[in-house]
Structures are given as C-alpha cells and as structure tokens.
C-alpha cells in the first residue's frame, strides 16, 4: 500500500534486461479492454447537459488518427450557465460555504480514493485520447493526480490566517477566504494531472470552479466530473465544459462573473488571458506557460546519469512538456562523448503503440502539432545545426515523430529559442560557468533549469543564478505535489502546488476590532 514510489521519467533504467523487463510486465496492470467512453456531455450542477447550441466536436485517437467519439461543445452560453451554477454554489450560507474545512478535505480525499479505484480505466482512456504510453500514464499521471488530490485534501483545514500585534487598542486578525468562482483552462499534455493541479488547491480553499479541458483531450476530465459527483461535492462546486479556446476559453477569461482565472498553456494564449482579465473585471490571473529550459552538464558530472536524465528530460511525454530540457549546454571536454551517447540513447528509444508495454514514446497529440514539430526540425537543418538522428515522421498511422537529436546548435537558431513541444533534443557547447549562466538565462522564458555536476559549489552557483521557477540538481522532472511550480518571466505568473499554490486561490481579509484596553 505504501509502495507507491513513483518511478519518475528520469529514473527509467538505461540497460533494462529484456527478460527481466518482460517478467516484470507480467505483474504489471493492463489497460481495460474495450473501455467505454461514458461521459461526453457538459458537466454543470452535477448534471450532464447538452450544449446550448446543440453543437458537438470529434475527439481523436492520435495513435491512429481515428475518431473516438463526439463530445458536446461548450460555448459562451454554456459558460454563462456554468458560472451561474458556480455562483449559486458560492452564495453566502450555501452548503459549500457552510461546510467545515475538514469536510472539504474529506471530499477531496474521497475523490482521490475514487480516482485510485478507477485508475486502470482512467489510464486507458488517457492513453487512448492523448497517445501517451499506458504504463507511464498509470505510474506517473495517475499517481500524480491521486497524490495531488490527497495533498490538498490535507491542507483544507490548515490554511491559517494570523492574529496580528497591531499598534493601538485593536485586535486584528486575518481570514483566508476563497476567491469565489474560478475559471480554469488546461492543456492536453497531462489532461488528468492538470485537472488535479487545478481542482486540488481551488477546492481545498473553498472556491467553486468552471473548468475547460483541452478540446483534444476532454475525456478523462469529464470522467472526473462523474467522480466529483460520486464523492459528494455539492452541485455547482465543480463544472466541466469541453470546448475550444476562442469560444469557451475566451468566455471564461472575459466573464464578469468569474473572480479568478488560471490558465496552463502557451505563452501566446497566456497573453490573451491576461488582456481579457484587464479588459473585463480585473479577475485574478495565474498563468503556467511555456519554457525553453536549460539543462547544464558539467564535465565532472556522472555521465551515465546526465545522458539518461537529459534524454528523459526532453523526450518524456513525446517532448510535450513545458518543462522539457530543450537546451542542453554541455561543457566542452565532454561534449563529443555526451553527443555520442545521447544519440545512441535516442536511437534506442522505442516509439510505437501507447498500449504496447515496451513503448517509451507514443504519437504527438495531433496532426497540427506533428506538422509544427517537423517544421521546427526543417528550420534546424536549414539554419545549420547538425542532425544526428531522427528528423522525420514515422511511417505509421497516427502522428508519430522519430526521436531527433541536433548537435552544433547555436543560441540564435529557432530550435534554440522557441518552444518545440516535440521529441527534439538540442545540444550546445559551453566553456565557462559565467558564460553558460548568461546564455542559459538569455531567453524570454524562465520555467525550469537543471544542472549536472558533482561539485556542490557549481551546483549552488547555478541554482542561484538561474532565472527559473524550479532548478533541479542532478535530476530532471523531479516534480512533486509538495513543491511549488511555476515560471519566472514569460513562463507564467504565480505558482501551483505546495503551500504556494493555496495563495493563488485565497483572498486575505484583515479584520480589526476596536477594544478597550490592549495588552501583550
């Protein structure tokens, strides 16, 4: 029961003995055969509703390009309905507002238990809808989802205000109150985990939610809606609206009845969200956006570890991570060796069906993304980077791309500046620590950074110097629900996870009482 140690992507063994692997697969959970899609409607007030317009949209399996089902398409009118429900659930004196904080925690813990109960089913649907391999989905995404919900369940009754030794004859204290109706817009790369990252802190703090999942991957998020209801959350507390950014997403961002909007996605859309908040009701905005993250490898690093972690750091989830370590700076003396080993590792990466247990990499999420990544690869070639391996679409059905490695990458090339969001590794060379600090920070992004070295002084220097919200030392993608996550610069505003995540869902109220005689 407590052996839930997650095998993080970075920890995948390099030289897995094939026989041992197959033996262990015998014990591994399997996908649910012929998994039914049970929920394809809009979830408002704990009820399943058709879209006001009557419109639907298709959802595809990116491994085959085939349609899975049609889903009700929420637009502005549906957002209005959801906001009304969320507003009502947030009324002073409502069941949700009157509930003990510990009871809110109980409901979240129950939701975590239900996700755990249905994790094989959820992982199956997640794999089908997003193309990510089933086993990592079960061990990383589902565990991350369950742990996040449990973590915030525990916080519900620990969100403390303070009493304050104010000057004068007063008694002053603060209350941390929920903000109100929170709009939440999430991406397609970790559909379930992003749902948990958003719902966990918002509900622990006592808010109500109008959540739009990505149009590419609405299915698991909708299933969570059914679990929200089963866990016993009051109607209107969580509302889930599948739909598109320019319609439903924009309606949320500019809605006058929404008090806060949280968005995870591209920097480009992040700007639109902030503008919409400014133009409408100055709703609070938190953003978790793109990255072009430096991963710095010093010559004294454990080379096996560095190569594997750098590989996983960029290729995990088919490269579709905002945390992807897509600029790898390698110290000159080990550059050639590092490139050689990285290429060797990339060539061994198994690409294939998400439901094949030996698959490390599934398809990209859509044809659009596939084309975009291939276009980046072309720009790398034409701007003079050396293509070491990969570079092409794989001749399968679906949206697969070969694991691709570029060496001799220069800082001003497009592949070194822009977020590719695909399985493409850029390897650059550096000579001094001062030089690499400057080059690593020379980007509009600031999400994460990593450094590999055995020298504690170098590690501390880099970790202080990086303009990034997260720095990993001798590890990569070591995310955990206890640790805050978010971006410097154009990688975002605010933090998710940890206790920092709660601040983004609270208003602080200062209450001051005149008293007759103050004493310490």
């Amino acid at each position, binding site marked *: 029961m*407590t052996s*839930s140690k997650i095998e993080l992507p970075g920890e995948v063994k390099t030289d897995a003995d094939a026989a041992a692997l197959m033996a262990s697969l015998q014990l591994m959970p399997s996908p649910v055969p012929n998994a039914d899609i049970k929920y394809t409607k809009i979830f408002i007030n704990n009820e399943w509703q058709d879209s006001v317009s009557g419109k639907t949209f298709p959802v595809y399996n990116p491994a085959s390009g085939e349609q899975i089902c049609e889903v009700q398409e929420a637009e502005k009118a549906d957002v209005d309905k959801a906001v009304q429900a969320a507003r009502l659930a947030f009324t002073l004196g409502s069941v949700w507002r009157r509930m003990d904080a510990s009871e809110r925690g109980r409901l979240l813990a129950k939701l975590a238990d239900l996700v755990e109960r249905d994790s094989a089913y959820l992982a199956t649907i997640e794999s089908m809808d997003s193309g990510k391999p089933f086993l990592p989905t079960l061990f990383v995404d589902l565990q991350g989802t369950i742990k996040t919900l449990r973590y915030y369940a525990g916080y519900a009754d620990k969100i403390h205000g303070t009493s304050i030794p104010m000057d004068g004859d007063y008694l002053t204290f603060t209350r941390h109150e929920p903000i109100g109706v929170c709009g939440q817009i999430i991406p397609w790369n970790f559909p379930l985990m992003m749902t948990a990252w958003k719902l966990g802190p918002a509900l622990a703090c006592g808010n109500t939610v109008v959540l739009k999942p990505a149009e590419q991957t609405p299915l698991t998020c909708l299933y969570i809606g059914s679990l929200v209801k089963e866990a016993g959350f009051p109607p209107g507390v969580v509302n889930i609206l599948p739909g598109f950014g320019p319609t439903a997403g924009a309606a949320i961002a500019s809605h006058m009845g929404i008090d806060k909007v949280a968005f995870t996605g591209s920097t480009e859309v992040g700007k639109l969200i902030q503008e919409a908040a400014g133009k409408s009701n100055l709703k609070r905005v938190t953003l978790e956006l793109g990255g072009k993250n430096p991963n710095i490898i010093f010559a004294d690093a454990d080379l096996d570890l560095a190569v594997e972690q750098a590989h996983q750091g960029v290729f995990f989830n088919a490269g579709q991570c905002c945390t992807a370590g897509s600029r790898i700076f390698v110290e000159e003396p080990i550059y050639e060796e590092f490139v050689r080993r990285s290429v060797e590792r990339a060539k061994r990466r198994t690409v294939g069906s998400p439901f094949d247990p030996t698959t490390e990499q599934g398809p990209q999420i859509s044809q659009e993304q596939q084309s975009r990544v291939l276009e980046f690869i072309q720009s790398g070639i034409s701007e003079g980077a050396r293509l070491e391996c990969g570079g092409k679409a794989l001749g399968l059905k679906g949206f697969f791309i070969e694991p691709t490695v570029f060496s001799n990458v220069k800082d001003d090339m497009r592949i070194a500046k822009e977020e590719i969001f695909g399985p493409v590794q850029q390897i650059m060379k550096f000579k001094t620590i001062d030089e690499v600090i400057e080059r690593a920070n020379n980007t509009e992004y600031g999400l994460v950074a990593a450094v590999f070295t055995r020298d504690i002084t170098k590690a501390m220097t880099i970790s202080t110097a990086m303009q990034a919200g997260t720095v990993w030392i001798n590890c990569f993608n070591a995310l955990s629900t206890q640790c805050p996550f978010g971006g410097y610069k154009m990688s975002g505003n605010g933090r998710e996870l940890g206790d920092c995540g709660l601040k983004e869902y609270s208003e602080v109220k200062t209450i001051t009482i005149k008293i007759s005689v103050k004493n310490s």
Partner: protein
Amino acid sequence: MLRHVLSRTLPRISGISNCQYSAAAIPVPSAQPEVHYNKVTVHQDAVSKRSFPTINPATGEVICQVAEADKADVNKAVKAAREAFRFGSPWRRMDASDRGLLLTRLADAIERDTAYLAELETLDNGKPYAVSYSVDVPMVVKCLRYCAGWADKWEGKTIPIDGDFFCYTRHEPIGVCGQIILWNFPLLMQAWKLGPALATGNTVVMKVAEQTPLTALYVASLIKEVGFPPGVVNILPGMGPSAGSAIASHMDVDKVAFTGSTEVGHLIQQASGSSNLKKVTLELGGKSPNIIMSDANMAEAVEQSHFALFFNQGQCCCAGSRTYVQDTIYDEFMERSVERAKSRVVGDPFSMKTEQGPQVDEEQFKKILGYISSGKREGAKLMCGGGVAADRGYFIQPTIFGDVQDGMTIAREEIFGPVMQILKFKTLEEVVERANDTKYGLAAAVFTKDIDKAHYISSGRRAGTVWINCYNVFGAQAPFGGYKYSGNGRELGEYGLDNYTEVKTVTIKVPQKNS
C-alpha cells in the same frame, strides 16, 4: 430523550456538527464486547509474566486480566523503537506522504470499527456509549486525519543568512518518544499523542493508563493491520511508578509527553532532568474559571456551564470548575443550574438515556466524595447531590455548591468529578484577578454579549484556551495546552508538531551569494 440529550450536548463539541453520526444512527451496543487484545503491544506477554485486572467501573467487576509491562518491557520496546528509527530504516526512508497515508488508513480502520471501539471504551471507562460513539471515536478519526495531512507539509525554511552562505532548516523527528496517557479519554488521548508524533516521523513507546488499557491495545492491532512498520508504535499497559517511571527516566528515550496530574507532571520533568534531559511536554490539571456576565444569554450560559463541568462525569482537565456569576444574576443562575443538574440522568452507560456514567475507579470515587465532604465542612452551601448515586459501581450524584469562597479547597483543587462550584462576583476587574489567582492556567470561558468584556477577559485570563460563549470546543486544528502548572507545550494544530520536531540548520558555503 436521547435526541434531546445529544442535541443539547453534541453541537458544543467542536467539529461534530458536520459529523455523519446522528442520534438516530447510533447502533444498539453490546454491553459485553469481546476483548481481543490484552497483551503488551499486540501479542507479547510481559517479561515478568505478571498481569493486572481492568475493572468495569459501572459494576466494579473485573473485565479481564491485562499483561503488566514494567521496566524490562519498556527496555524491549525502546529497543524496538530505536531500531525502527535507525538511519536508513523503512520508516526513516518512507516518503512523508506515505506516512500521512498510513495515518489516514488508521483513521479509516478506526472509523470502520467505531461501534466496537465505543463499546469497549464504555465498558472499560464508564462513559456513556452514546458519547463514546458520537464524540470520542469521531474525534479520534478527525484528529488522525488532520495529522495525516501534515505529514508532507511540515516544511523547513531557507534563510537569508548574512555572508556568502546558503542556509536552510530541516524539520526532523526527535526520535523515540515516550508517551504516557490518561484514562479520561483513552482513545482520544492516544490519537492526540500518536497523530503528531507519527506525522513528523518519530517512533513511539506509549504507556496507557492501567484503568483503561483495552481500546488502546485494540488500536495497536489496527496499527499493525494498516501497515506501520514494526517498532514504530509500541503500546504498553502498566503502572505509573514502574512502566511510566521507566519511560520518563530512560536514557534512550528522546522525548516524553505526559497527560495527567500536575503532581505526576513534576515527577516526569524531574526524571528527565536526572536522566538524559529528554524533551518534555506536559498536559496537566486545571481549575478553569467560567465567567458569566449579567448580560449573557441565561439559558445558553446555564446549559453550557452545566456541560462545561459535568461532561465526562467531570473528568476533564479543562472542566469549568469555578463558575463565576455576576451578582445581579447569581440567584437566577443558581436556581436554573440546580434544576438542570437534578435532571441529569445518571446510570448504566450502555443505556441511551444516560448522560452520566460512573467515575473511572474506586480511588477517584472516594477522592471526589472526600472533596464533597470538605466543601460542606468548609462552609459551602450544598445545593443538590452530594452523595453516591447507586449501590454498586462508582456513581456520584451531580453536585452543586453555592456560596463558594475562593479560599475553599473545592475552589482551589482539581476535583475531577461531577461537582460544580458557583461563585459570585461584582466587577470585571475583580473577576479577572480572582480567576487568575490559581496555579493552573489551562482554560477559561466567558459568557457575555459585550464584545469589549469578551476581549478584556480573553486577553486578561492567563490560560492556554479561552472560549467565548461556548465551552469544551475542541478541534484537531486548534492548539490546546496550559499556562503555569497546567503544562508545557501545546498539543493539536500546527503548534502540536513543534513538540515532536528537532530543527536542523544546514549551512553551505557558497562562492558568491545573491539575493
């Protein structure tokens, strides 16, 4: 009647307003629950092979024999706890979130077995089953769940230290914690002790009260069931002078937490001083003032003051045992309080009508009767009760004394029984001074509609807890503990974690600090 009793009593006990138990849902108890666990920890005999009887206080009959742990058993348990705490052990290597999950699963198991635990608690302690079932066990579950949530949120800090250094703190467990608990809330005190100690990663050697060992031993079986590693929790039934004293003076116990009398609290602190300076937290006695201003809502004040004193047969360290009533309403308050006390139903704890069961044992029973005699002797006016309430078992009538003066023994010492003292006062300043004229400082309450009076008293009273227009409101979230002779340290809330934590400051030289 039951619904009436509960609806009157229960909402005042914190947090249960939302609890899933209602009077209607309480299952009919078995008055003779089977005892499954009567040995040291789960299954070991005492080294000495000795045992002692545990008594049903409602009848005075022996329930069963329980293995009696003494120094040799404490040594065994400390060794097991030390091994479980070894650097690199499964318990030390475990993710904090998994420690939390184990505590959650323990809460789930206790919730599953609520009815049985409540029966056993009532059998061994004498408290009414309706209360065990609706108050004690649900509060245990909530306490453990609360602490479970802290396990992975107990964060150190990074600190902007002067100079070219990087500095951070780690909150580390203290190590092997000795815990000695009382018989008045056997299950709840166990949860108050285990929750924070385990959330923060310590290992535990717990001695449970010899009067009430049975539920704690059953919980030990649940601890094993949910998967805590061996040695993390060790539970020893035994006596204070042997097992308790062995814990307090053990050279390999890093911390001791004690709940009980102030008298024994002194001994514990001394034992620490004469052995290894183990950390000490104490939750001791009280003589808590409950102040009723003339503008208070009379009906509320009477009912709450009754509850403040008589709850749990008066066996609460925070009992409101000095009820100060403003002179202009004194007579009316007295009359209504007497009426309420007379209507208090004393009897078989397994009957759903019962509000008050027996005192826990003969010693307590006699001690309380002695206090009642001293009250009469010293000139207090006996308004009702004052005698034994049944011909067997340790039942005492709900008793009220009027015209109590501050210097009387019953106004100065902790009675720990169903004996209410009502005192008269005139002014706010006077009552605060009189209320503070005690060596104790556990709790206090004030009943008033006036916001200024409420704040004057809440800041003027030297006590760890102040209730305004309520009494006995406990929540796992809110710290509890004493000023002065009522104790050291706090239990529950975030503050409770401090008492199970060593703070380690780690400082790393760096070539060049930057903000």
